[in-house]
């Protein structure tokens, strides 16, 4: 798929998760308030990314003082439409199930 289209800040809409699918909405999409925070992955055009919070575990987004956990690294999409997030020699892989400008659906391949 076209990598450029995936660039941007994607916010975890955990209320919509189902059947192992993880749902993201773009920056600016109206999502309900939540005390546990929302993971967000900012996929940048230079192939770097910043992850706030943790994808998949909503209760693990924040630090002890309620600020976000931060992780950064590099990202790529391989030929099988798998989003690879590389940080500290570790790679997280997410299968891209569907994509539209207002909704990104992935599955954790771990």
């Amino acid at each position: 798929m076209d990598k450029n289209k995936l660039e941007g800040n994607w916010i975890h809409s955990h209320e919509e998760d189902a059947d192992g699918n993880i749902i993201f909405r773009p920056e600016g999409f109206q999502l309900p308030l939540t005390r546990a925070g929302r993971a967000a992955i900012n996929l940048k055009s230079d192939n770097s990314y910043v992850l706030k919070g943790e994808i998949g575990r909503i209760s693990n987004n924040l630090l002890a003082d309620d600020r976000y956990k931060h992780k950064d690294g590099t990202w790529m999409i391989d030929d099988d439409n798998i989003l690879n997030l590389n940080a500290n020699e570790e790679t997280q892989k997410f299968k891209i199930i569907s994509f539209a400008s207002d909704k990104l659906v992935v599955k954790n391949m771990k």
Partner: protein
Amino acid sequence: MENQTIPGQENGKAPVQRKCGTMSVHYRLLEQHPLFIANQINIEKRVSELKKFGLERLIPVTIPVVVHVIYKNPSENIADQQIFSQIDVLNEDYKALNVDISKIPTIWQNTTASAHISFALAQKDPAGNPTTGITRTQTTQDSFGDDDSVKFAVSGGADAWPADDYLNIWVCNLGGGLLGYAQFPGGPASTDGVVILNKAFGKGGITQAPFHLGRTATHEVGHYLNLLHIWGDTHQCQGTDFVADTPNAQNPNTGKPVFPHISCSNGPNGDMFVNYMDYVDDDSMVMFTAGQVTRMQATLSGARNLIGI
């Protein structure tokens, strides 16, 4: 939660026993907050002193508050009334005068305690002039993150008032889905205090359910007074909040839990999700425990011993 303890049995016991499993929390806190360890050692010493001499030694404290309202759009320039309502909530919650304290399950009704802490908008500014205790700053920033930029005029926010004398509360359009964040005692004075989303501050005005009852500030001020989350900030039942009478819990609770919610073999009563230091909705958090009060009072006689004097 504290490992291997039973609610109500903390009195007279040696201060908190740290176990290996808690170290990961320490490292994380150390990373984000370099003064945390030294601060903790000091506070644990105070906690053990207070346990020895008893809470009756304590004098009620009134903490002067300055609320810095940072707004771009006029609607974010919240009304005085919304601010007053937040001060009222803090005064109720920190003296166990909140009406909804009746929601505590019977089993914990004797575990709750007043922190004997009052809050009042400051009447004198740092120069000694009369003040409302409210500052209002228009900004060009659409929103602020958790990077403390709201705490400096140079980055579109408002500078802190001296942290020894005031509890600084910044109220703004906090972005990224956060309701608020705090700074533990012992950190830099220029960033000391709490930041609260304007829609989750106080009651009425522009507040939004289910965070419309002022409990976000109650929770964040708990961190300001050195309370940790009751699940201990790990997810393997090994974390601790260094408080014995909050049951060990695995994860935060969210929403409006139904009693009991069991985790970490903490049955039959389960997680104390009615505690202000969990992640539930505003109408579901209603109490501090006696152990948490001891910890806050230790902070007020230690790391924050100048505030309110």
